[in-house]
């Protein structure tokens, strides 16, 4: 029953018709499935209903166009098959929490909010990690020491910094067996200006560290913790699942724009297991703590 090719083909059909007034029945017919069987298969693999996927993708593209074009809101709404600005506004607010006018005024493009097209790699990743079920846990504040950099036009910089840090770590503590943590912090407008990457270890209050390192505190709070089984190269697929599939369906919201990965020492990359934690809060909560 798990037919990735069929769902991938259906996604091709959807993506090439985001501007056309298609129905879920049209999508099912495009892959020669009955409506019933199609909805079932699509949801099992893509973890969105076909209609939810279609709407989220239209809204993601419309949100992008709001910031990157001068088109009127009514024109963008019509282009993505919303009958009027009220229907568009309601759907937009449901996904992004604010109205299109406010979104345009804020002018803050955060790719974590815009659901990307699901590729075959995304589908295969979800099928393989069928038990991508998080643990919700309260985590105490922890003190991390390590190295940090701004990642802007150099996507390989985190890998290089990690290698560099591990070398430094061995010099500092040859017999270390500590978990290594990487943090990604996303300031406003990070899509234009870059994000901060930090790699480090947890340290005690009285430990001294090399002068080239910095200290970062990961604050106490509630976290969703996921186990990622696979290569580091697949982490972007895991994050797409967390931000665009799990989070909107979970009843939780992102508390702060950063995430934490905990790497086990010595695990080979291809089969490595790491845990990903994202800070979450109930919808409507008031922010109390921030990463420092």
């Amino acid at each position, binding site marked *: *029953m798990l037919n990735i090719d069929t769902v991938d083909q259906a996604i091709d059909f959807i993506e090439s018709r985001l501007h056309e007034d298609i*129905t*879920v*029945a049209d999508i099912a017919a495009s892959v*020669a*499935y*009955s*409506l*019933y*069987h199609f*909805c*079932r298969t*699509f*949801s*099992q693999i893509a*973890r*969105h*209903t*076909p*209609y*939810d996927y279609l709407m989220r993708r239209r809204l993601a593209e419309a949100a992008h166009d709001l910031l990157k074009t001068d088109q009127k809101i009514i024109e963008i709404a019509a282009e993505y098959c919303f009958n009027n600005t009220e229907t568009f506004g309601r759907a937009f607010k449901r996904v992004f929490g604010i109205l299109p006018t406010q979104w345009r005024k804020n002018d803050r493009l955060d790719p974590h909010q815009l659901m990307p097209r699901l590729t075959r790699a995304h589908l295969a990743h979800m099928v393989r990690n069928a*038990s*991508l*079920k*998080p643990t919700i846990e309260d985590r105490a504040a922890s003190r991390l020491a390590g190295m940090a950099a701004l990642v802007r036009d150099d996507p390989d910089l985190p890998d290089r910094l990690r290698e560099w840090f591990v070398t430094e770590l061995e010099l500092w503590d040859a017999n270390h067996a500590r978990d290594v943590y990487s943090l990604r912090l996303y300031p406003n407008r990070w899509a234009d200006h870059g994000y901060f990457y930090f790699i480090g270890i947890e340290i005690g209050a009285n430990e001294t560290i090399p002068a080239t390192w910095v200290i970062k505190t990961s604050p106490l709070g509630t976290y969703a913790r996921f186990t990622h089984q696979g290569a580091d190269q697949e982490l972007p697929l895991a994050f797409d*699942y967390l931000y665009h*599939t*799990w989070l909107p*369906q*979970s*009843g939780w919201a992102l508390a702060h724009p950063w995430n934490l990965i905990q790497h086990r020492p010595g695990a080979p990359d291809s089969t490595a297991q790491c845990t990903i934690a994202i800070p979450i809060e109930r919808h409507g909560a008031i922010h109390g703590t921030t990463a420092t």
Partner: protein
Amino acid sequence: MEPTIVEKGQIVLVGLSFFGDPFRLHGGWEEENEIGRLWLRFMTYLQQRHDQLPAVNAAPAYEVHIDHAERQRTGEYEVFVGIAIDQLATAPFDALVKFLPPATYAVFTLAGTQIGGDWPQQIEDWMSRARYQRAYAYEFQYYDERFKGIDHIAESEIDVYVPITRLAE
């Protein structure tokens, strides 16, 4: 997949229903779907109403899928699960009642792995081959003693009833 054609009078069902896409996710990871949850809710309900309704598994059960205008656009529809009753007066206040009209039905028997397959498409194919159309916008699955439970699909059989009428020549 060839059906048998049967005539049925009005069927009165008492049960519970769900509207939406039953395969939408809960929390993004749970395997269960809304149809399974509806069945569980209905089974629990039958136990609570054992003084007014037949006991669980004592009577055949019906899973009715009812199309609404939105279904083609969004994939959302109504699923109703229930059992047949003779006297409307026996329906408890907190249950729903469905009247299925007298109809000619094409009855397809699904066995084992067929149950999880794309049989709705095969039914559509058969209807267009045999020059029938749907008489009403619903169909139902009929579960009797031949259904051995969700964990024993391989040894199970169910019937799918589709109300039909001849296509005009």
